[in-house]
Structures are given as structure tokens and as C-alpha cells.
């Protein structure tokens, strides 16, 4: 499962329809984060990889995208420890996962 729907439901219980705004902000801001991440991985700018992966880790966890959050955490750790070997592979996993996450979130928004 790409997005933990029960997590979103719990949040929806508290803030109601405004959850839509939160999800939309995620959908709007994530592509930019991923672009920055891609640039940074390509140019091996590890500090940027670390900080962008860090924010992706946080924002994805906040919308219940636990897989994506874990992948981001792994990338963040790799960058922190200078492990550059499978960074590109990890990035591709993240990008693919995010496509699924985005679709799941859009589907969820449509149930509002």
C-alpha cells in the first residue's frame, strides 16, 4: 500500500475537509523537491541530497506515504554517510513510488 488510508482518515476526523488543502500542498510542492533531488544526485551535491531527502521524508510521512518516507530516509542516510553507490537507483525508486503516492492521494481527495 502506497498511502496509509487509515492514517489519513484519522487526520480527517480532526480537521475535516481542510485535509484537502494539506494534500494539495503536498501534491504541489513535491515535484519541485524531486527535481532538486534529481539535480543534487546527478551533481553529487551531498548536502543538498541530504536536506531535500530530509524534507521529503517529513512531508511524505505527514500524508501517510510511509514507504516513500522510508525510502527518503534511506537516501538521507546514504548522503549523510557519503554512500553514493546506489543513490541513482534509490532516486528512481523514490520517483516511481511518488507517482503511485500522488495517484493514491488524488483518489482519496476525490472521495471528499
Amino acid at each position, binding site marked *: 500500500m502506497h498511502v496509509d488510508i487509515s492514517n489519513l482518515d*484519522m*487526520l480527517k476526523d*480532526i*480537521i*475535516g475537509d*481542510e*485535509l484537502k*488543502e*494539506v494534500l494539495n*500542498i*503536498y501534491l504541489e*510542492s513535491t515535484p519541485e523537491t524531486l527535481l532538486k533531488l534529481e539535480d543534487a544526485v546527478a551533481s553529487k551535491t551531498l548536502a543538498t541530497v541530504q*536536506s531535500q531527502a*530530509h*524534507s521529503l521524508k*517529513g*512531508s511524505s*510521512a*505527514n*500524508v501517510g506515504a510511509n514507504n516513500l*518516507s522510508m525510502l527518503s530516509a534511506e537516501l538521507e542516510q546514504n548522503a549523510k554517510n557519503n554512500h553514493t553507490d546506489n543513490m541513482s537507483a534509490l532516486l528512481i525508486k523514490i520517483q516511481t513510488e511518488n507517482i503511485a503516492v500522488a495517484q493514491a492521494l488524488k483518489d482519496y481527495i476525490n472521495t471528499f
Partner: protein
Amino acid sequence: MLSTSPKPTRILLIEDDPVTRLKVSKVLQHYGYELIEAKNGKEGFSQFIEHKPTLVLVDAMMPEMNGYEVIKAIRNYELDHSIPILMFTSLEDTESIELAFESGATDFITKPLNGELLAHRLKYALRTSEMEAKLRSSQSQLLFAQKLAKLGYWEWDALKDEVTGSESVFNLFGIPKQQGINLDLFLSNVLPKDFPIIQQAINEANHGQSHLQISFRALQHNGNLTHIECLGEVSFDRANKVSKITGSAQDISRLHKAETLIQYQTQHDSLTELPNRSSFSTTVNDYLTHHGSGRLSAIIIFDIDRFKQINENLGQEQGDALLISLGQRLNRITREGDFAARLGSDEFAVLIRNAEHLDELNLLLNRFSQDLNAPFMIDNQELFISYSMGVSVYPDDADGLETLLNNANIARTSAKSRGGNQFIFYSPSLNDNAQDMLALENDLRKALLNNEIEVFYQPQVDAQTLKPIGCEALVRWRHQERGIISPGIFIPIAESTGMIIEIGQYVLETAVKDTQNWHETGFSNLRIGINLSSRQFSQSNLIELVQHVISNTELPPKFIDLEITESLAMSNAETNINILNGLKAIGVSLSIDDFGTGYSSLAYLHSFPIDTIKIDRSFVMNLESSEGKAIAKTILAMADSLKLEVVAEGIEIEEQQQFLQSQNCDILQGFKYGQPMPKNEFTDWLTKNT
């Protein structure tokens, strides 16, 4: 479900990730909190200063000042560590949790954030901090009291009109300790004769006086009189109204009994309890023979203008109340070591010991007469009274008691004959000087209103390219009749009267506005140096004021360079480092001015968060000698190793410039590039030299 306060609890949320920020803020708003958001550390700290939140939530990793730095900045700024700060950390990251506590966080919340849990954690943090605040307040009351030699404490809540305090205080005032005692009830055993003293103090508090020290008598149930001394600290709300007064009370009856009644009566005036004429003579005589030889001192003798008439209008009893209040005020407004006495009916005298020089004496006298001129509250009415004052100066006017008193009296008579409401020196030459100072002081009060205070700008150039790099803002007073008045003359007056604060604020605002203007017209790298006076620097809300200026301008704060003198920085290094850290955290640059004139070492200065040192002009003037060159070289080399930028002031000739260039000085300032000039001239200079 939140705290009982009617206002919503205000939370500052500092978080760079927009998703987390929006989610947290939505959740918390639903639980009834008011949210202020900041998207990085620097913005967070600014918002903290501006909005005074009740609790802070801060993320650890952020651009532009990370979470730990924000917490440190906040802790530095508030000093009493009272605001709960919760940090978001990852559960697995024990290192960041440790760092959070080290930098001063109250607690941490692990991510990912669960909405309901978050609200609960917040509620607990707020409740704990409320309890701590209560504890702190009662502890500080206790400490305050203990510090003052185990006195009882009391507190008057002005809004609820309720007095609370320790058992001993209620005993002292002869009132049973219970809830809901209002001020009138609390004071109901105070001798009616002494009541005006208290009214006077409250009136002064209403006019902004933050400390009070009064003594009065209360009638006990057994018929005895107790002498009570009260010290108090006044708190004000945001509208500057008195919100509460906290203080101590002490039974000082023993002090009065320690002297035999007879002794006391022979040395004190029974109405005001000030020392009497014979006591004053003895004290002055003692002082002149034993301590005062050669030191500049003065005797003031004064009386109330038209006292007879005032007394008739008020009635005997209120007239006496006025004299008692005046006596109390004299004790308060004279410096420690000065000596005030009542010589006769409405005639008083003050011995001023040890003034540094005549100008200081003049400032002291001005201050004294202004404090004396503040209105009295008599019978619920503001009463303005004026005085005729005569001053004789030792050793200039006389060297013995008799002659000094005589001369002061002659001067007093002459003040009276000129219509009163003034002080006059016995010596005519001193009068001219004093008149001049007084006139200037009065004019200075109107100078800001009349737009006579101007900001001039002295160019600064890059030492290598000699192109404009910035300027220093310098204050000028263009007096309507006398023309430009030297800062050397009017700054001390402004300092002593407190007007320096308004003037300083005006200079800060104007200089920032003008610099923003230059930035808009294309000189977008121009920096502006602005001096902070010691009075400004010791204002408790300095950081807030600077933040306010920054919030109201487009000019990035890094171009604003606040300069404090070396001696000011060193005067109270510990506290000052905190203030400087706070200023640094809101983004301005900091310079040490007049470097080399104090006694600090560069290495010590390194613990200050400063960017620049300004070498004093005296070093530049000394560059002709080889010794002078050696000193300058050392300073520049050390500054270089400490990565401090160096501005050299007072450059006048080519040789100085060449030497400083060869030693990698960064910025030059002096007549060689331009004198301080008005805004428009400086704009021309910029255009011409760019």
C-alpha cells in the same frame, strides 16, 4: 479545554516543510490555538520577538538558522527561560534529541506527527509551563523578599484592586490576612497625615516611575505607631498602565527608636523627618573639613514660590502634607551621598558632594530641578509648584560653611526677585554657563519636533578599489539660531535627560529609510553604519525596536551595521554578549567602534558575535611614527586571523591610505573621501564616485 485565559493560546510554528506546516497548523487551529507560522529559523526568531507566543514548536533541520540555533536565540532573548519550546525530531535520531535539550528545548515531539497526540503533548507542555511560571513567580517573590533582609512581601494587583502578601506584612499593616483585601482597606491604618506619601508614589507610578521607596507610619491596634518602609517594583501592561506593584515592607520602627527620642528630635524636623538646620550645618562642616577639600561640591538652598498663598488655599493640613511629600521626594531624587535637610518652614537645602566638573554639576542641577518640578498629588489633585533656588559652589564661591550658606541664600533671593521658578548661581560667570546649558536643553526638547535633528552621512570606501561601499550615519543638530551644534555638546545633554533614546531611534529609522532609498536607486550594496548609545543599548526592548525597524523596510538587515563603542561592549560583557547575540540573530551586522581606545584584547572580543572593528582615528593619526605603524599592523593582522573586517577612520592623507592598503585593511573612512554630509549631498557623492 485549554487554559482558562480568555485569549486563544498563541503558538509559533517554525517549520520549513510546507506540508508539515499546514498540517500541524490546521490540526492545532482545530483545537482552538492561534497559530503564527514561520518557514525558516530566522523568520521564526523575528516572529517570536514580534508576536510573543505562549509556546514555540520548531523543526530541527531548516535552512537559514536551524532549530537549535533558533532555540538558543530565543533563550538568549528571553533570559528567564519561561517559554515552552518543543522540537520536532526523528525518533531514531537520539543525537538530535540530545542536541535539542542542550540548546534549551523544553521537550521534543517525534515525527511523523500524529494529530491528536500532538495536541495532547501541547496541552501538557502548556500546563507544565503555567505551573512553573506560578512557581517561579512565588519563588521570585520570596527571593526578592529574602534579598532585602528577610522582609515581608506584598503585591497589589491593580486590575483587580487586590492586595496579597505574606502574613507578616498584613500584621505590619494591622489588617487580617484574607482574600479580597483592596488597597484602601489594606492601607486603612496608615496615619492620615502620611497618606499623601503613598498617593504621591502611586501617582508617580501612573506616570511611569518603576521603582518606589517610601516610608510612612501606621497606627497599631494597641495604639503604638509603626514606621514602615516599602520598596516596590511597578509592572506595566502593554498600554503602559500600572498592572501590578510588587514589593517588600519592613518595620523600621527600631531604627527610629535606636536614637533616643531627644537626639532624634534635636537633629530632625518633626514634620518631614528630614534632618534639620543644625544637623545640616554639622554635616556640611564635617564634609568640608574632612572629605571635601578641593573637590567640586555645591549647596542648594531653595524655597517654594508663593508658599504662603498655597498654604492658605490648601489649608494647614494639606499644606503640611505637601511639605512631607516634598521631603520624601528630596530623599529620592538626591544621589546617594548627597544630603537633604529642611532649614525652616518651606526652606530646604541640599549638599551635593563631588561633581566631576561644572558641566556635570549643571546637568545634575537641571535633573534635580526637573524632578522637583513634577506635580504632587494633594487631596486628589495634581499640584504644580515652583521653586526659587540658589546655588553656591565650593571651592569657587567660598571655602567655609558660613559663606557658602550665605552665598546660596543671596542667590536664592535673587532667583526669587526675578520671579522665581529658576535656579541661580552665586557666581555670575557660572550663571551664564548654566543658562546656556538650560536653554540648550530646552531647545533640544523641541529639536526633534522642529525637524532640527538631521542625519549626516560620511562616506566609506573599499580600501582596494576606493569605490563607495557604505557610510556612517552621524547625528547633527541644526539649531534655529545657533546653527550646527557639535554632538560633543548636545549628546551629553541628550544622554542625561534620556532624550538620546528618541534621538537614537530617529537616527536609526531615518538612516535605514535613506539607505533603502539608495538601494532602490541602484546602489544596492551600500551598507549603513549606525551608532548605538549606551542608553539605547541598555533599553530592555532594544531588540524589539530594531526588529520593528527591520520589519518596516525592504532593506536586507545585513546592510545595517550597528556600532557600539568598545568601552560600552566591555562595560558589562556578559549581558552584552546576550544582547549582541540577539541582534545578530535578527540579521544585522555588528561593529565595535573606537577600537583600541579601551583596554580590551582582540582575543576577548572574539567571543562577541561581531563582524567588524573600527580602528579609532587616533591610531591612524599616529601612523607617521614607526611605533604607530607597528600597532596598526598588529591590530590588522590579528583582525585578519579572527576573520574580522576592519574599518579605519580618520584617513586624511595619501600616506595613510597607502599604508592601510598595504596591510589589507578593508574599508576606509575620513575627510580624504568626504566629510559627513546631508543626504542629498551624499547621493551626489555616490553618483560622482561610482
